[in-house]
């Protein structure tokens, strides 16, 4: 390996030329073909049974995500100005290309089912905007007496009214988003405010905000790293060269992505920061070694110096790059394609950084000459002292480790999973505040669809017994889960019809007690109402039914508690031959997070195993392999434990970090053990070998740790909370693996006496 690299030293200009040519090719590919994927449906594994079922249910019942426009007038909505705004905005939305006319619902489009003295009346609440006080008062009374709209389309405070516009799949774009916001803003007056919220808006904002934020972070990360690297390398030229290597490998990675036509997913926007922060380590170790060698051998030629650097450092650099890329590549076990691609390209990028560091940096030195270093500073005394002290006070490390492990296991008990999109935003952001505002006035902005299925048995959902059970389940849900605002099903239609057909008497606000009456009410509704409304409630042969549950939060705890109540009715439904399924975007988000986490646990286990096995082979000793795994195991545990204590939930982003952290965190151990093993040959004791290792590599390992910790810590300045969490957790992970390596691992290696057993035997 080293020989091949040393051969390349003879043709530095050729190496540089090829590197730049390839970079140009990849850069042009990236510029031409890169595409950001903002459609969140593309992130979901479409072949998963839950998604397949949900897709079918969405088709059967025309389930779509809605954009919610809330029109607020603090003086009340029953005045000509507000109602005119409602009408005009409704009509404006109906004309938008991305929205079907019939998918816009508001008080203006809703059916008013009313009982009259001698019959039934289904009509619009208003077609011409009421002008006189009498007309306005009438409308107010009509709405109050209709539980199908009161509290659903008009708030009980009578100061807010909603327009819900359901979207076709995949029509959301930056332009459409801007258009929607502009439309809403254009209806603002002194008295009237128009708010916009709803899942498409949340998803769309998220898909645009996360990458935009990462983009802003990159230059800051670069600046911080240049500063830290300069402190470590003390030469601006070397610093910039190391940065150039990681920038080139980032270009190659995105170029390759564009070349094979893979779009940039939200998660891939983490790639540049990941690659830059991890990639600079290789150059850092190479230059650190070179500096030490030149200090010890001031007369060495550049060929000798560079050859020595490659001989000494190429193996540990290659091993660390391989372990880091294993951390990323273990994400290939995920069922979620964006995560798979992220792992694949990050792995590629890391290996590219390593290869470029090993050929590009030497080529530049050969072409432009050796860097000059100031005379050696004597710092090894400090390294010797620290090492001796750590080993002497080994019980501090051991007890400390045990305490931390116990504490962190407690912390992991508090860990929870969150698939919420809204929780990713700042608590005081417009989107969260608007959502809160609407949830305070209405049933809830998140919809969970419950699909009841009689497996093809006709007319099941005309049976009063079945409908009553559904009604009971709905009331239980609304009573037992505070976050369930309202729910809507065929049962609500029938209760309304029954009441209306009995002179609006409250005692008839119940499910009719025979199937014929149910069937006749439904027929009557079809004849007099807009039968398309029923499409959302029940299928044609009454063998499948959709209950829409409105939730005031999209976080996993809320959705799961609603699901738990529904599941408690499963035995009763089963007796009636009915099975329970869920659908809709809220549910898909939940399944999606579970999938990511499931995959994550596997990729973490796989990653740790591969790393331990790999290091056991590299160092030809299984005990060394296991010992090297200790800091990363503790790191993973601390990561999860701290998240538990700090109430940071596991989500798509934070879950990815564990195996990435293992892949990067193991590097400290690799460098340490690699040097330790070579010093063990010339040392008389384990302590001496450890001290020499610290003297040689302690500084570069520490700077490596500072680089990764600070590099990721920059993300704390992000305006996007998930990026901040990511920065915090991965920095913490880096810190704990660094500390773990130099404390408990050092103690264990010393204790195990691995490289000295034979020597001890010989001595005895």
């Amino acid at each position, binding site marked *: 390996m080293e020989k091949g690299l040393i051969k390349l030293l003879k043709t530095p200009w050729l190496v540089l030329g090829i590197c730049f040519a390839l970079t140009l090719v990849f850069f042009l590919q990236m510029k031409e073909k890169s595409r950001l994927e903002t459609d969140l449906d593309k992130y979901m594994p479409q072949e998963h049974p839950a998604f397949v079922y949900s897709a079918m249910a969405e*088709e*059967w019942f025309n389930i779509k995500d809605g954009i919610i426009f809330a029109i607020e007038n603090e003086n009340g909505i029953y005045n000509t100005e507000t109602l005119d705004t409602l009408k005009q905005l409704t009509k404006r939305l109906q004309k938008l290309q991305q929205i079907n006319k019939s998918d816009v619902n508001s008080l203006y489009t809703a*059916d008013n089912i009313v009982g*009259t003295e*001698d*019959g*039934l*009346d*289904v*009509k*619009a609440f208003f077609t011409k905007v009421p002008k006189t006080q009498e007309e306005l008062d009438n409308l107010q009374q009509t709405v109050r007496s209709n539980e199908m709209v009161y509290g659903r389309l008009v708030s009980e405070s009578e100061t807010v009214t909603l327009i819900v516009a359901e979207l076709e799949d995949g029509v959301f774009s930056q332009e459409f988003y801007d258009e929607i916001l502009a439309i809403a803003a254009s209806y603002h007056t002194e008295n009237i405010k128009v708010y916009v919220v709803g899942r498409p808006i949340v998803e769309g904002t998220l898909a645009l905000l996360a990458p935009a934020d990462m983009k802003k972070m990159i230059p800051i990360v670069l600046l911080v790293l240049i500063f830290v690297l300069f402190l470590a390398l003390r030469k601006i030229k070397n610093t910039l060269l190391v940065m150039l290597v990681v920038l080139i490998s980032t270009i190659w990675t995105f170029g390759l992505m564009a070349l094979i036509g893979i779009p940039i997913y939200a998660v891939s926007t983490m790639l540049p920061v990941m690659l830059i922060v991890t990639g600079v380590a290789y150059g850092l170790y190479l230059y650190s070694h070179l500096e030490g060698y030149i200090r010890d051998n001031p007369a060495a030629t550049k060929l000798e110096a560079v050859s020595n650097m490659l001989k000494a450092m190429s193996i540990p650099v290659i091993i660390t790059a391989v372990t880091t890329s294993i951390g990323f590549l273990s994400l290939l076990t995920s069922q979620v394609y964006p995560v798979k691609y992220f792992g694949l390209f990050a792995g590629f990028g890391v290996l590219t950084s390593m290869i470029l560091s090993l050929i590009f940096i030497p080529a530049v030195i050969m072409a432009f000459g050796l860097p000059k270093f100031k005379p050696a500073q004597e710092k090894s005394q400090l390294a010797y002292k620290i090492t001796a002290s750590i080993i002497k006070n080994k019980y501090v490390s051991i007890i400390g480790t045990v305490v931390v492990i116990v504490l962190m296991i407690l912390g992991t008990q508090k860990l929870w999973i969150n698939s919420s999109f809204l929780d990713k935003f700042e608590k005081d952001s417009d989107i969260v505040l608007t959502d809160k505002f609407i949830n305070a006035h209405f049933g809830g902005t998140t919809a969970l669809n419950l699909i009841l299925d009689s497996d093809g048995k006709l*007319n099941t959902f*005309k049976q009063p017994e079945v409908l009553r059970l559904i009604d009971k389940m709905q009331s239980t849900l609304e009573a037992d889960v505070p976050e369930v605002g309202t729910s809507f099903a065929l049962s609500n239609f029938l209760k309304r019809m029954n009441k209306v*057909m009995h002179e609006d008497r409250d005692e008839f606000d119940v499910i*009719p007690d*025979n*199937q*014929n*009456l*149910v*069937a*006749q*009410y439904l*027929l*009557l509704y*079809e*004849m*007099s*109402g*807009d*039968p*398309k409304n*029923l*499409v959302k409630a029940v*299928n*044609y*042969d009454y063998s499948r039914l959709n209950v829409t549950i409105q939730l005031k939060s999209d976080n996993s705890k809320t959705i799961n508690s609603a699901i738990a109540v529904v599941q408690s009715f499963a035995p009763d439904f089963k007796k009636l031959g009915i099975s329970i399924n869920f659908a809709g975007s809220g549910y898909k988000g939940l399944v999606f997070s579970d999938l990511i986490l499931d995959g994550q646990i596997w990729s973490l286990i796989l990653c740790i195993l591969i790393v331990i096995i790999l290091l056991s082979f590299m160092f030809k000793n299984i005990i060394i392999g296991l010992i090297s795994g200790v800091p990363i195991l503790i790191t993973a545990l601390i990561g999860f434990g701290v998240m538990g204590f700090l109430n940071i939930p596991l989500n798509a982003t934070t879950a990815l970090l564990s195996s990435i952290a293992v892949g990067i965190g193991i590097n400290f151990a690799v460098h340490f053990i690699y040097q330790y093993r070579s010093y063990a040959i010339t040392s008389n004791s384990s302590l001496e070998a450890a001290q020499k290792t610290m003297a040689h590599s302690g500084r570069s390992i520490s700077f490596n740790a500072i680089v990764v910790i600070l590099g990721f810590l920059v993300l704390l300045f992000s305006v996007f909370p998930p990026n901040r969490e990511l920065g915090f957790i991965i920095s913490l992970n880096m810190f704990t693996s660094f500390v773990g390596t130099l404390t408990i691992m050092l103690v264990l290696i010393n204790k195990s006496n691995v490289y000295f057993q034979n020597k001890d035997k010989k001595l005895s």
Partner: protein
Amino acid sequence: MKKITTSFITFGLIFGLASNSELSAQTLDGKQIIEKVYNRPTPPNQTSTLTMTLINKSGETRVRTIKQNTKDFGDVEKNIMFFITPADVKNTSFMNWTYTDATKSDDQWIYLPALKKTKRISSESKSDYFMGSDFTYDDLGDRKVEDDTHKLIGKETLDGKECYIVESVSKDKSYMYSKTVTWVVKDHFIELKKEFYDEEGEKLKVQHIKKYGDFDGFYIKILEEMVNVQDKHSTSLFFENINISVNLPEDLFTERMLMRGI
């Protein structure tokens, strides 16, 4: 409420006899063709059994059979329908009186046997689609000739019959159809096929008469289909036991008869 008036008459889908002597095909323009369609005389009495099949985009069907009677009283047309199947709506009945005076709203009653009550229902223009089908009341009736600008745009043989093709563009820009294109059979002035275009000018629905017959000189639809090409929903209407030679008694069209059932 003219549209509802005509809807129930044409629920029997009656076609008048067009005398051949009136025909001078070469000189007819678009408007004249549509006038001839509109002005066909209708039989004063009609009974039939209608099977209405709704098919949704998942291929699920809803089938209903209805016995219906229609009588023209001059200033009012009365229609009474009794559901035969499905079993749970059997004997549910529906009566509609439509007045020639366009300013006068329809009177509608429904009787629900399970409730043992007759209820009046008032439907406004909201009830665009008839009973969950793909037919609006306008589609079932004949829209007034002067509501559209008509243009003969071609001639074609369709289903073995020579047809005029007439394009009718709505004068009211906010009407639900921006235009319709109709294939009118030259000999009988029957609208054999009709395409409906929505407000955006996209094709919305296609109506096709698959079968019609000659009853005492009246041409009457037997099997008709309407497909909504946008939401993949379709409706077929199949008329059996068509009888136009009865003289239906006046007291058939009363609330008492609604409750009595078939």
